[in-house]
């Protein structure tokens, strides 16, 4: 590796300042504030706050509701991440084989990416509408009495489908460019060495795609944990009731609907620690197995 040298010690710092200040203002400051307020009990009308120590965390650990949401979040994240990645990879592998019309195909798939999460949620709302949603009708014809927002499982299903649909295009583009950066001759060499197409995929294509896959894994977990907020909010229309929700959505509901800022802050802190641990784990355990060219 080559090391680029800077003549002055201050230039690199100066170049980092914009990025650092953004992180400082939009991440560290709110994060520190959340940590602080998680130790307090706020007056719902904003008249004052009382220091309560770890009580917010203690009540969190005793809340059955919180564990239910945590469970759902884990399942939701796993499903969304898995299906967004798997579908995108499948589409990319197929698209990679198409030479003619590849551009049209790509553009059509990319359009979905331009849809904002709440809009995607709204479209899901229309598709899954209880009375006249085409998908509801379709499920009805299969004998599945689909009930969005009334049935816990059906709502969860809709959430996963819409979130996956929203995320597939991004993954697709990354996977496709990853596939196209694999040298043609390496694939041809594999063609001579191995007659099984699936064998070639798992032995050669997939490992060479792993750096892209690892990057997307982190992006997708983050997406499923945080960016699906808009989808969930639209699908439950701000009234979760008995419907499933993710941890992030619960932070919002408890904090801004329930006016329990302290408890909500405690949840944010827990979430932050979880994501941090998860990312460290991924870099330690998964990245080791990846070959970067």
């Amino acid at each position: 590796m080559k090391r680029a040298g800077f003549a002055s010690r201050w230039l690199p710092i100066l170049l980092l300042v914009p990025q650092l200040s953004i992180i400082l203002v939009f991440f560290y400051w709110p994060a520190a504030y959340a940590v602080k307020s998680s130790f307090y009990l706020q007056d719902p009308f904003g008249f004052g706050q009382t220091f309560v120590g770890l009580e917010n965390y203690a009540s969190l650990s005793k809340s059955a509701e919180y564990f239910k949401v945590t469970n759902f979040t884990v399942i939701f994240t796993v499903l969304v991440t898995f299906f967004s990645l798997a579908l995108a990879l499948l589409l990319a592998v197929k698209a990679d084989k198409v030479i003619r019309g590849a551009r049209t195909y790509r553009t059509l798939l990319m359009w979905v990416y331009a849809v904002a999460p709440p809009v995607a949620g709204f479209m899901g709302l229309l598709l899954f509408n209880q009375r006249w949603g085409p998908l509801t009708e379709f499920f009805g014809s299969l004998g599945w009495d689909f009930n969005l927002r009334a049935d816990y499982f059906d709502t969860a299903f809709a959430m996963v489908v819409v979130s996956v649909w929203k995320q597939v295009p991004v993954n697709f583009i990354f996977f496709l460019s990853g596939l196209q950066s694999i040298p043609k001759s390496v694939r041809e060499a594999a063609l001579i060495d191995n007659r099984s197409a699936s064998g070639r995929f798992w032995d050669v294509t997939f490992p060479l795609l792993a750096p892209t896959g690892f990057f997307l894994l982190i992006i997708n977990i983050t997406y499923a944990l945080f960016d699906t907020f808009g989808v969930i909010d639209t699908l439950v229309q701000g009234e979760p009731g008995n419907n499933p929700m993710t941890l992030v959505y619960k932070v919002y509901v408890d904090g801004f609907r329930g006016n329990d800022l302290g408890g909500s802050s405690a949840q944010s802190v827990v979430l932050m620690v979880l994501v941090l641990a998860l990312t460290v784990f991924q870099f330690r355990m998964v990245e080791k197995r990846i070959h970067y060219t």
Partner: protein
Amino acid sequence: MAQVTLDSVRKIYPNGVEAVTPASFQIKDGEFVVLVGPSGCGKSTLLRMIAGLEDITEGALCIGENVVNTLDPADRDIAMVFQNYALYPHMTVRKNIAYGLKNRKTPKDVIAQKVDEAAKMLNLTDYLDRKPAQLSGGQRQRVAMGRAIVRDPALFLFDEPLSNLDAKLRNQMRIEIKALQRRLGVTSIYVTHDQVEAMTMADRIIVLNGGRIEQIGTPSEIYHNPASTFVASFMGAPPMNLVAAEMQDGRLSFAGLELPLASSLRGPVTLGLRPEDLIIDSHGPLAMEVELIEELGAHRLLHGQVDGQRLTVHLAKEEQVALGPLRLSCRVQNLCLFHPETGARMEGGFAFNLAQTRQEERV
């Protein structure tokens, strides 16, 4: 090991371009054949069709006794060495070499033994556990060779395997590949645009131009009896001098050169003269104006004009020359005549009266 037969093999791309016009030839068991030609001449397409990486539009391809047109590349019993080596970057050298065997259900102990043998043969034993990125260009080239030889295939295919190496390494690998092929006796097809590689490595050369086979022959046949002006100018460095000459009344005339020729040909012809067949001769019939001398150590190249036509002369290092006028004669037995328009060799119908010619030369 097997012979390879192409029967009117043709390639037309979907966009209508005919990359290879119907080509027929046979490669004998154990023979080293080089496909040579400028870029875009269809040599790689032809090789890739033999490998099964491109479809054959028409014609039949046989490896051994069987027509293999519709077989997958993996089922053709071939091994290929690619221009950029095409090693699997995420596998160690050992795994790279073993991959083709593993997929053919070879027992583990046999794989280990074959890999070790190949590694020893190619001086790769110390590098077996490295990844390709940690190897030099020459070592990667050897790994690619190793991957081909462990398979013990019926046919080796080489697609410009040396063009990414520097000149010194290229010369060394050229000899190594040739020696290895001799030792293993595997039928080989080698694609290159480098006429030196073609001349030095081939048992037989196939010269391609614009998707068409110009000539098939041993290196010496190709060099001494080129079938066309294209072959004459492509093979040999520096290339054969091609000058416009005139045939009349059984005499060939070019500048001051007058040769009696027992031929009924009349009119303009293209005369081909190898640079080494031109000799300095103070009484020679050709008057050359030397414009440039290329010093190559072992010999020199003179560039200049004779009667307004460009000419190159190959000179032994002992001979003294200077810029300016010079008189030349030539070894007439090596002259070639080509059709002035089609560039095709004009065979037969004439023979030099050598005795008479020598007399004339002295005049």
